[in-house]
């Protein structure tokens, strides 16, 4: 009952005119960035975070969460109309969305995507409301060792479940952590890694510099290379009859909605997973369980609904560990978490008691944003199609302008803009060679928090690492640490498993 009261407060907070205006604006921007090939929620949030400094934290998080949410809806538009995923989270939407558009049923695909997103979003936000308060209560009992163990688990999840090249994934985690150590050491006060004695390094590397570099500049270079400005748009007729027919086609997608919503939420909670694997997994499972699995890939609405339900559900799910444990569940929430630190908040369970307006305002806004995004998405389809026709050669320099100004604004130093360019180019090259870049962003955000937790733990234990593995005194930390170790060594068992069951890697 108490939760319901707090939720109601949160809904009212997000309905205040200023917050509501930001929410609607955020949904619109989210839909736009989601729809643009090459831009996703993470890019939108990274580029826009500097402009949230002038509003209170609650309004800022409502705006950015709406961008995150809207982008999950918007990704489907370019997947269906152009055959290019608007963001990696909408890759699975192309599998059936594009064939539907080619068959002339683009409106069915777009409606399926919008309704799927709405259902996934609604189910996940209800689950979020139910799970968040008890989890935060448990997390309140966490001290430095448990916090550090949780962060190790977040890094280990990338290695165990990331599915990428293991040395490259670990390299990405370590470079993010190493970059986070640049600047003054908090305990000894000594300067660390001040290259060429450039004073700009003394204040450390702001996570935004890396995030905008990788997700702004790097992503744009990647998209310029991929698209070269050539896109093929499908034809679309928008009228009430088409919309009605599209809704009729959704009757057979109930199973896809269930799988997408629940699977998406729980996959979203995992630190390394996020919305992209959630959508791919739910597409795969829905296809496996469907009676018409052979029709998947030829244009069935369930093939659009499953991934769209899942990516929205996962985006909400990834906010659960961010708010309750201070551990981001996706690259976008890693940036949101960094934003909270910039706004002067301490991420973690204390937020629920110290900043209830912030937490419940965010949760309440998810309900409202879900509704507004559905309405805006369907109503503005013709407008988004016009936007998709803007040549990339015009859009790209505008995004570069936003990146340069966004990289400069937080610290007002050109040094950071140079670093951002360097990270952008570096991120682009590394991504081309299959180095995952998301772990680096997660690490630079969590790095200072993890270092603090580690050093505090070691002071508590007189320098003994045993504190993290002692079931008697710190059972939660020990359990989390052992799970992290299992996750870390899991990839080593892949080849052994395949040998035992005589499966080739390609078939597995």
């Amino acid at each position: 009952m108490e939760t319901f009261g707090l939720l109601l407060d949160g809904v009212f907070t997000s309905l205040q005119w200023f917050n509501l205006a930001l929410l609607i604006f955020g949904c619109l921007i989210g839909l736009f960035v989601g729809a643009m090939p090459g831009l996703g929620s993470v890019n939108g949030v990274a580029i826009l975070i500097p402009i949230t400094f002038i509003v209170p934290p609650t309004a800022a998080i409502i705006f950015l969460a709406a961008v995150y949410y809207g982008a999950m809806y918007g990704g489907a538009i370019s997947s269906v109309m152009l055959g290019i995923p608007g963001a990696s989270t909408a890759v699975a939407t192309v599998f059936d969305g594009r064939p539907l558009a080619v068959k002339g049923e683009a409106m069915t695909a777009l409606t399926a995507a919008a309704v799927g997103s709405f259902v996934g979003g609604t189910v996940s936000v209800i689950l979020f409301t139910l799970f968040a308060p008890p989890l935060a209560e448990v997390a309140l009992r966490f001290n430095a060792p448990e916090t550090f163990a949780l962060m190790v688990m977040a890094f280990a999840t990338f290695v165990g479940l990331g599915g990428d090249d293991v040395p490259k994934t670990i390299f990405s985690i370590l470079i993010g952590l190493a970059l986070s150590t640049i600047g003054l050491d908090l305990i000894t006060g000594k300067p660390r890694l001040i290259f060429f004695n450039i004073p700009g390094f003394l204040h450390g590397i702001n996570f935004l510099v890396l995030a905008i570099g990788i997700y702004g500049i790097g992503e744009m270079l990647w998209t310029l290379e991929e698209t070269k400005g050539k896109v093929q748009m499908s034809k679309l007729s928008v009228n009430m009859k088409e919309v009605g027919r599209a809704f009729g086609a959704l009757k057979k997608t109930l199973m896809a909605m269930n799988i997408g919503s629940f699977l998406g939420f729980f996959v979203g909670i995992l630190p390394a997973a996020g919305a992209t694997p959630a959508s791919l997994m739910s597409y795969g499972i829905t296809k496996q369980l469907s009676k018409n699995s052979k029709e998947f890939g030829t244009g069935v609405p369930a093939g659009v609904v499953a991934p769209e339900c899942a990516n929205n559900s996962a985006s909400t799910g990834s906010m659960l560990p961010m708010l309750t444990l201070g551990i981001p569940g996706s690259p976008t929430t890693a940036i949101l978490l960094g934003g909270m630190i910039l706004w002067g908040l301490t991420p973690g369970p204390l937020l629920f008691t110290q900043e209830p307006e912030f937490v419940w305002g965010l949760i309440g806004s998810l309900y409202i944003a879900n509704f507004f995004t559905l309405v805006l998405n369907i109503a503005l389809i013709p407008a988004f199609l016009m936007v998709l026709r803007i040549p990339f050669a015009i859009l790209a320099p505008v995004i570069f302008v936003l990146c340069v100004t966004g990289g400069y604004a937080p610290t007002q130093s050109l040094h950071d803009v140079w670093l951002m360019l360097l990270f952008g180019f570096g991120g682009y090259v590394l991504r081309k060679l299959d180095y995952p870049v998301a772990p680096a962003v997660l690490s630079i955000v969590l790095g200072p928090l993890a270092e603090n937790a580690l050093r505090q733990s070691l002071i508590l234990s007189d320098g003994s690492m045993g504190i993290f593995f002692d079931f008697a005194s710190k059972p939660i930390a020990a359990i989390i640490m052992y799970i992290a170790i299992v996750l870390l060594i899991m990839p080593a068992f892949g080849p052994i498993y395949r040998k035992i069951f005589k499966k080739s890697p390609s078939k597995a």
Partner: protein
Amino acid sequence: MSIVNKFTVRRAEITVAVVLALCSIALMTKSAQNRITWSAEENMGAGFLPFYLSLGMLICTVLTIVKFILKKSPQSKDTSAFIDPEAFKFVSVTLISLIVLVFTIGYLGIYFSLIFFLAFYLRYFSEKSISFITIFSLTTPILTFLFFEWLLKIPLPQGISEPLFYPVYDFMYGKITMPIKMIFIVLTIFLPTALVLLINRFIK
């Protein structure tokens, strides 16, 4: 463009791994300028974490190099071009123009640098008319100025062009009523469009 074709994914993989290994060694050396030891009595030295993190990075790059030599990674067997020549043009021109942009920001200031950057970029990559490019290149910096300096109160670098902005600041923070300020803002935003249209008419 043959050099671009010859630079294969395979070659890029090993080049990048070696560069990253060298960077890791440089980081280790730099970290070692602080104490890198750790004991219960002395606690952790300031260089301890960066040193061992960079050591970990070095081990990862060595593993990547070993996988390359044993041809165990997909990139080590990929002999296709790292980047195709047409895409190379897009990426390299974009990168160079961005470097020039940031370089000129320090001297000319951000607003004038943006005008040149946008004009060059649009002229090079888009097929839009000179009028469109002029309007776009002038309006974007004006909007950037209004957004950052007026709305967010964040000053962006102005370099040698700073004195030109003094009258604007006098106006912004002067005793002028808000409606007049708003009219001025709207006029400023549409100024480039009006100018270009006027010039077009004059030339015709």
